Each structure stands twice: as structure tokens, then as C-alpha cells.
């Protein structure tokens, strides 16, 4: 079983001092230790953005893919080898803009992976432009006169897409976040956590303080995680009070559960040196 030390890598961390990503990193490492994994069991899949650098900072298997494609990559890995624990790390633009195509579909399929979205409400690595979760009026280099549309509500989308585990964390509360990650990974099915991740360099609006003043924990207030309607309602709560925690949780067969012919077999273990195609050839005669 892995220790925090085992998880360290020789790579110098280049996130801005104080960046919310540090909270996610420490919560994640803590969760891996808490879950008692071996390093070989875990695969991190990350997108392109500041968030994506997390791959360099945790010493487990990792695939730092292209922008927006965390979910199909992770899907391919997990379906092929269900013995792996596959965890995706995406950004708000990575997941909700460029990669939006995949989000609702991966959730519908209930692929048995975890997705952590570093939602800093900005494109960080490209030096600060508005994303779909940026608040209307938010001024950035791409929106010098203010972002126009209402912000995307990714949690609501996950919920109406039949998500089976929908949660939100805050990088400023890594302990709470760690508990969410642990639950999400243990969840059989698609575990989704959107994480408020202050970008201290470019997001002058949604700062630690801004969040700290507003966030409260659903689980402190007796929220019913079995009600999808309630969860949708909560996902729209935005203003003086913003909820974090588990919004919704349900058990439903995963995509792989439906593949009854292979059940839990890793396809990597199916021999391929002499696949018999004779009966197919016979049919073609």
C-alpha cells in the first residue's frame, strides 16, 4: 500500500504559489493512501491546461492526453482493463468547452471511472480567457467587455445525463475534497467531482475568499442524496450560498456490467495468438 512519499515525483511543481491545484493534488494523494492502492493499480488521465500538469506530480501510471479528451481516453483504458482504477483530471475548458462532446455521454454510459474537474472558471494555461463556467460580465483577455452568456451548470448536466455520482468540492478544503475523492473512487460507476479551484493569477473574481464566504456543505444540512430533483435544484443554488459535497448518488449497472460475455475479464489477458475464425470463413462459403 502506497504512502504519500511513494507518490512524489522528481518533477518540480510549476503551478503558481497558492494555486488551487495544490489543494486538489494533496487531496488526491491523500485519497490514494486512504484507499490503500498500489501505485501500479492507478491510472491518471489528464487533459491540457494547468490542471493537466498533475500527471507529472503523482507517481502512478499516467496518460497526459490532448486537450478535451480525458473521458474517451479513460473510457478506452477502463473498458479494456477493469482491474485498473482510472481517474481523469480535466479543466473547465478542457471538459466543458473543448471536451463537452464526451461529458454527458461518458456519464450516461456509467463508465466506472472517476472524473475530477479543476474548475477555475478560466483558461489558465493560455493566460486567462473566459470559459463556459466563467460568470457573465467576467472580463478577460478574450472578453474585455465581459463574458456574455450565463455560466454553464455542469452539475445539472451531469444530473440530467443520469449521472450516478455527482459532487462538488473546493480546493480550499482539501480534507473534505479528499473524502469526496475517496467516495467517488469507491463508487461503482462514473464518479464525478467538479472542484472549485481558485486561479490566483487570472481569476480575480472567484478567489479563495469569494468561495470561502459562500460555500457550505450539503452533508451538513441533511441533503437527501437520493433525490435527483433536489440535486438539480441544489446545483442551481448560486449567490451568497453555494453548496459543495455530494449532490446525488445512485447504483446502476456500469457499461461493463452490460457486457455479459466478458464480465470482469481484462481483455489484456485474453490470448490472441490463435483466434479461431474458421466458423466465420465457413459461413462465407
Amino acid at each position: 500500500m502506497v504512502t504519500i512519499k511513494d507518490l512524489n515525483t522528481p518533477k518540480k511543481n510549476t503551478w503558481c504559489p497558492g494555486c488551487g491545484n495544490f489543494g486538489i493534488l494533496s487531496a488526491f494523494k491523500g485519497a490514494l493512501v486512504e484507499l490503500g492502492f498500489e501505485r501500479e493499480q492507478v491510472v491518471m488521465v489528464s487533459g491540457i491546461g494547468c490542471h493537466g500538469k498533475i500527471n507529472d506530480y503523482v507517481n502512478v501510471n499516467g496518460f497526459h492526453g490532448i486537450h478535451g479528451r480525458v473521458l474517451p481516453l479513460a473510457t478506452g483504458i477502463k473498458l479494456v482493463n477493469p482491474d485498473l482504477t482510472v481517474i481523469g483530471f480535466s479543466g473547465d475548458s478542457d471538459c466543458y468547452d473543448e471536451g463537452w462532446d464526451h461529458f454527458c455521454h461518458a456519464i450516461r454510459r456509467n463508465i466506472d471511472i472517476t472524473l475530477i474537474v479543476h474548475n477555475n472558471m478560466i483558461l489558465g494555461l493560455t493566460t486567462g480567457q473566459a470559459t463556459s463556467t466563467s460568470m457573465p460580465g467576467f472580463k478577460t483577455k478574450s472578453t474585455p467587455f465581459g463574458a456574455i452568456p450565463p455560466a454553464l451548470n455542469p452539475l445539472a448536466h451531469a444530473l440530467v445525463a443520469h449521472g450516478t455520482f455527482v459532487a462538488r468540492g473546493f480546493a480550499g478544503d482539501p480534507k473534505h475534497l479528499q473524502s469526496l475523492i475517496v467516495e467517488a473512487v469507491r463508487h461503482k460507476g462514473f464518479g464525478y467531482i467538479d472542484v472549485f479551484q481558485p486561479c490566483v493569477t487570472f481569476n480575480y473574481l472567484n478567489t479563495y475568499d469569494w468561495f470561502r464566504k459562500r460555500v457550505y456543505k450539503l452533508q451538513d444540512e441533511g441533503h437527501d442524496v437520493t433525490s435527483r430533483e433536489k440535486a438539480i435544484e441544489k446545483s442551481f443554488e448560486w449567490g451568497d450560498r453555494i453548496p459543495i459535497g455530494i449532490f446525488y448518488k445512485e447504483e446502476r449497472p456500469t457499461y461493463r456490467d452490460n457486457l455479459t460475455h466478458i464480465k470482469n475479464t481484462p481483455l489484456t489477458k485474453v490470448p490472441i495468438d490463435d483466434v479461431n475464425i474458421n466458423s466465420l470463413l465457413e459461413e462465407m462459403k
Partner: protein
Amino acid sequence: MKVNEFSLMIGGEAGEGITRAGFLFAKACMRGGLHVFGTNDYQSLIRGGHNFYVARISAEEVYSQADFVDLLIAFNAETIQLHRTELASGGGIVYDKDDSAVNDEFIGRKDLKLFPIPLRKTVIEQFREQPLLKNAIVLGATIAIVGYDLGLFEKVLKDTFKAEVAESNIKASRIGYDYAKNNFADDFEYRLKKKDSVDKQRIFVEGNEAIGLGALRAGCKFYAGYPMTPTTGLLHFMAANERKYDIIVIPPEGEIAAANMIAGAAFAGVRAMTATSGGGFCLMSEALGMMGMTELPVVIVMGQRPGPSTGLPTYSAQGDLRFVIHAGQGEFPRVVIAPGDIEECFYETMRAFNWAEKYQMPVILLTDKYLVESQRSVEPFDINRVKIERGAIITGQYTEQEEYKRHKITETEVSPRAFPLTKGAIVRTSADEKDEYGYTTEDPELTTKNADKRMRKLVCLTKELEERGIETVKFYGPEDAQATIISWGSTKGPLLEAMKLLSRENIAVNYLQIIYLHPFPARKVAKILGTAKKTIAIEHNVTSQLSSLIRDNNLRDVDHKILKYDGRPFNPGALTQKIKEVL
């Protein structure tokens, strides 16, 4: 009387089961020891429009359709109108007796035999309006007209359909057969006779199926594909076999997802594949670069059709050669293989997986609609010709002293692969430039080294191909010839037929088929072009892309280009004519 040299066309609206009818007839012929080639022509619509299937049947091996139709089964008057000029003199037309539009004047030719048959009427009266049974009726009649064996046809029906369906089809075919026997003189010029002893049992298979068989045999375990003509058939084939072969076939939300899913599957350690056409390939091109960068083995089947853009979505073309060679930003190794016939579809698919894994790079099988949606009777594939070769893989446990390096720089340019969950190995990769461990880097020296490493894999592959004598090109015809024809992909079939025709006229040409387009077999091409008297490139594109590759690699131009880019394949006779024009 012409025995066992016959070209049949079945035409009508989409949705009438024309392709299926052609398939059934062709198979009955094949089982009688005859050789068959079949192909279809249809528009991008589900009903209506005009569709046709042509089957060419012969005692000898056949590689393409013929220029002329000997018997036309016309489900509507439009079919006659569109194809009457293609009919051979002495040929015939089978049509609905009660189609009032069709009469001698309408047909407008006196040199044809007419075979009117009560079709709709029979269907209405005897088969409670099951319209598809008219196919069985006309095919039964056709068998009578050409004097073939109805029993073979009935057996095909039995083997193809469920008992009940087979039965009504058999009944319908007998009605057609009897009607023709009773109503038409037995003097049709074209005859089909089954061989007394059938030496070899052949299979009747289309390109998509041959690729699918190759993939299954090669151990492909993960297929993600979004439908796109002309490779949709491959998706269907793989999906149908998902459970039987313990594989996963997943319908993704689009081609971007498909490509990234197979990348994930390949990273996890299985052979993975997708198929698409141009538009989908565009969407995959970013992931293609990622596969090159992360050294992932995958196979991508690309079925060409006429572009640009959506173009003619159900027709055939060869306009994407340069595109697939250069798609994706930056420079990374890939293999582009263009099978030219059904057999090559099978064997090259098997090889594709081997190159992909041995050299850890994407392999593109560049096909087209004419290749993957045409059928041919061929000898059952030799399933042992291409052995599985997976390259350097660390199995069991990783036990070396040094930490595992997924992207280790080695002398062979290939870094042994471990898959996630290999005890002792952490497998890390990145679409960014990276060090040997897979950590991202921006170091200039490492960047140069890695680029060299990646590109040198093509050098090593080229060496292996040469040393093992892999047929990266094939050469047909006499060494000493008036001209050398150069082509790639599905033009092979009509070209082999054209060469038969030319040799009948004592015109000697030879033919260099290029199967491996990238890396380009420049040495072999140079050798053959070096002695060629005159060179002719034959392609289905506007700019003669193969000539461009030859100029680029061999510093010489091809003398003549015969180009056709209307979506339709060459007919052998017409092609012969074009060749003669430039000789």
C-alpha cells in the same frame, strides 16, 4: 453460345434488396465452381433513387465488373433507360411483364432478348405483398434463362435465411424458374454451367469483411467506430461478432471519441482499431498525432470516397493519399498501407497490427468504397500466413534495477512496452514532449533526440520490410513491356482485367502495384521505373497524388496519368482504351 462468361446487372430503386439479390446469385454461382466479382452502385439515400448491383461470373478468376451487361434485371423502367446502352448485343432484359412503360419502342434496341415476367402480380397474388420476394422470382427466372442449377440457388437461400424466409424464397424462385422455362425459348446466348467437380471451396467476401476477419484473427480486442460510408460494414461486422470473440465494440459519440478510446485501449495493452472515411479522419487527426507522440499501436481503417467534404458519400475515390500521409501537426511515424484486393485486405490488416505493435505507431489501412464494398470469390484465407508479432512487451513483472522508462531511448528505437498493472512498472506517457520516464519536458536536446528516435522507427521498419521480403509492391506482367502502369489500391482489379484484354491484342504492359505508400518503397520503385519504357499512373483523383509521391521520392515524373474522379470505378475495357491512347 458463351458459356461461363457472364455479366449480370440488377437495377431498381434503393430499398428493393438489390445488393442482397446479387449476393445470393453470386454465391450460387461460386458454389458451382465459378468465379464471381460483385459490386454495387447506390446513392446516399435509403429509398428511391437508382441502385444497381453488377455481378461478373466466369470460369476463370475475375477481378472486376465488365464493361458490358449480358443480362439486365430491371425492377423499373428507369433502369432500362439508364443502362440499355451498356447491354451487350444478344443480351437480355428481365422485367415486370405488367410494367406498362416498357415496350419495344422504349427499349429501342432490336438486338436484345426480352424476358417479361409477372412480378408484382405474383407477389400480390401469392406472397401477400412481401415485395422483396420479387428478387427470388427474377433470380429463379434468370437461372432458367442461363440454364444454371436451381438447386444450388435453393441451397444458398437455405443457408442464408431462417427456415421460414428461406421457404418462401425458394417457392418464389421456383415460380420464376418455371415461368421462364415455360415461356421463353431456350436460346439465350449466355450460359452458366456448374463445374463437374468443384476443386476448391471458395468464400464470397467483401473488403470490409476481409478486414474484419483479419482484425479478429490478429487479436483485435477493442473496436470503437462511428458509422461512415464506406466502412460502416466493418462496424457492423465487428459489432455482430462482439460476443463471439470476447471483444468490445463500442458506439462512441463521434470520431474524436472513437480515436481517443482506441488510444486508451492501446495504452492499456490490447490491439485496437477504428474505421472511418475522410470527414471522420479529419476529426481523428489530432488524436493521430497523439498516438504518434505517445508511441501507441493502433490500426485505423480509412475508406475513401469522393470529396472534398461530404462530396459523393456513397461513391469511390482515391483523393486522400497525401492527406493521410501528412495529417496531424508535426512529424511522426505512421504506416500507410493500401490493399488492392480482398486477399490483401485480410493479410495487410493482420500485418498492420504487427507493424503497429512492433514499432509502436499508428497504421492506416487506406481503402476506398470500391474495395471495401465489393465482393469476390476467393480461396479461404490462409490464417497462418501472417503470424502474430507483438514486439517488445514486458510481461509478468518488471524486475530491472532502473525504474521503468516507457520512452526509453534504445538502439532499436523501440522502447519495450509495459502495460499498466505490470508489477514494478509505472507506465507514464504524454502528448507533450517528454523524457524517457514520460514526464513532460521542454529541453531542446531531448526534443531533438526524441524526434530522431521517433522518425528513425520508419527507417527500421523499411529495413525490416526489405530484409523479410515483405511485398511492399507487387509486380505483374512481363518484364519487357511497352509501358509500366503504376497504381495503388482498388484500381488493381480493373487493371488486371485490362491487362488480360491488352494481352489478347498482344500489347504487353506490366504493372507495378504499390501497397505500402508510407514509408514509400522508393528503392523498389526506382528499380522498376529504371527499366520502364513509358510510365502510366492510374488513379481516382484529380492531381495524381501517386505521381507526386514518386516525384518526391524518386525525382522523376510519371509520363502519363489516367485519372478518373467521378466516383465510379474504371471499367476494364474503357481503361484498356485509355491505356492504348497513351501507348
